């Protein structure tokens, strides 16, 4: 692999280190359990990623509209608000870890 330092001088930047507390907060928002060993490793690698992302500060974006669709002038197509045939529920629920009587089973939510 090549050293991209001349193009992205990331090592010269002050890396914004994500702390263990921040990683735990992000993992909570993302509903991901992490082991204690994973937290510092993600802190390190995500700090590097955010340093790369920091390169965006180089671009002058005053007056530039954020892109909303990769094809100019296009937007997501909407269809008529009518029911269409979908795969039968029994077929879809075959992939459910736990389903019974047409319902998905989860741990008790309300005591």
């Amino acid at each position: 692999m090549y050293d991209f330092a001349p193009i992205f001088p990331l090592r010269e930047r002050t890396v914004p280190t994500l702390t263990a507390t921040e990683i735990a907060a992000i993992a909570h928002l993302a509903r991901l359990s992490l082991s204690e060993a994973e937290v510092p490793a993600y802190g390190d690698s995500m700090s590097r990623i955010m340093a790369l992302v920091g390169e965006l500060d180089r671009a002058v974006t005053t007056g530039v509209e954020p892109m909303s669709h990769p094809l100019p002038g296009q937007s997501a197509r909407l269809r008529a608000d009518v029911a269409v045939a979908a795969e039968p529920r029994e077929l879809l629920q075959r992939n459910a870890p736990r389903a019974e009587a047409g319902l998905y089973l989860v741990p008790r939510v309300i005591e």
Partner: protein
Amino acid sequence: MPTVASLAAALQARQISSAELTRQLLGRIEAAQPRLNAFISVTADEAVRAAEAADRRLAAGEAGPLLGVPIAHKDIFCTAGVRTTCASKMLADFVAPYDATVVARLKAAGAVMVGKTNMDEFAMGSSSENSHFGPVANPWNVKRVPGGSSGGSASAVAARLVPAATGTDTGGSIRQPAALCGVTGLKPTYGRVSRYGMIAFASSLDQAGVIATTAEDVALMLQVMAGFDERDSTSVELPVPDYAAALGRPLAGMKIGVLTEFFDSGLDPAIEQTLRAAIDELRRLGATISDVSLPNLPLSVPTYYVVAPAECSSNLARFDGVRYGYRCQNPRDLKDLYERSRGEGFGAEVKRRIMTGTYVLSAGYYDAYYLKAQRVRQLIADDFARAFASVDLLVGPTTPTVAFAHGAGDSDPVTMYLNDIYTIGANLAGLPAISVPCGFAHELPAGMQFLGPHFAEERLLNVAHRYQQATDWHRRAPAGVAS
């Protein structure tokens, strides 16, 4: 070299039956699997049944460019009755109740699926090492990666296990493995091919495409795959041109811009040498060559690593351990069920991207990261639009290096991400791009990339085909592979 076109002709002429051909390739796949691990699932029984059905259609006088031709699908496309894993523990036992549109169209055309190819988990990676089912090897040197995320498809085509395979490309996942394995790979325009039944990673970037040995074969596959699908809200309602008809057009008068930003200090000089020779060949074929600069293009990698993780964190929220996919043992409560099912079901890179996306979208950071990235993305798209006002196509390398060793990117994900520096631009701007073999560096294949304006697939296939008529790089096969 057995191509889709030559195999279809042999099948049509009844020189070989689809069942014979399919059994022959299944034998090769079985023999290569311990070395390459290009497949997650080999569907031998289903393949032979489909081949026999194709033989009946051929016997009844039916003709078709893919009828009876064995192909493979990247394991990101849903296949009814055959498991679709996305190379994840999360979906290790998932059997989709329906076919992806791409799968259904190829099936209807009589193509025979022999299996589902290995990949980076949820298409997140550039080496096909991030797979729950083990890493894929490059048939040119099994100690090297095949690229990714469609590494299994590229490895299988390079090893001549199938003449063509489907892939998906979010940041280079078709073109980069095609380049590193010495085969041809096309990422069509955003919206050209339906994404229905293709497991979503980053919905504003994802596009399905093809890996094959020749541009002609890519054209034959794309012809069947492309077209409007009402079940994909990003599918574009435009007629599909006759791609094969465009292949033979002369290149005289075609204006090709050499992307100066792609010849940066990170480009391996040995790859640059093959590229310069390839560009000379284009000139000999009649194309007019000039330099073109896209000043914002080097920012494509940082832009991508905001947009793609943001969309990934949203798309992968659906994997909750409730409706499908992996569920942890003995959850204490609903929160524990979500967190452990996801924490145990996703691999390290997928978790990293979900968290990066969650972070850039979180309160207080959305404007600074996501909106900023979408503004830079617009600048990059504007750069391309300006370039295509003066040239018909752009050309440059597909990758900065040849295939690297397994484990080379383990220590720093950013080093790995930067290897996609030449491919990400096309995804950000929704443009079609193709990688074709253009020589060797350090005894490994190098790829030349052409980028075109939206819906210029005909032009890309035309230039790739003419180049392949004049050169034989795409005919080279790894040692020990019958070409």
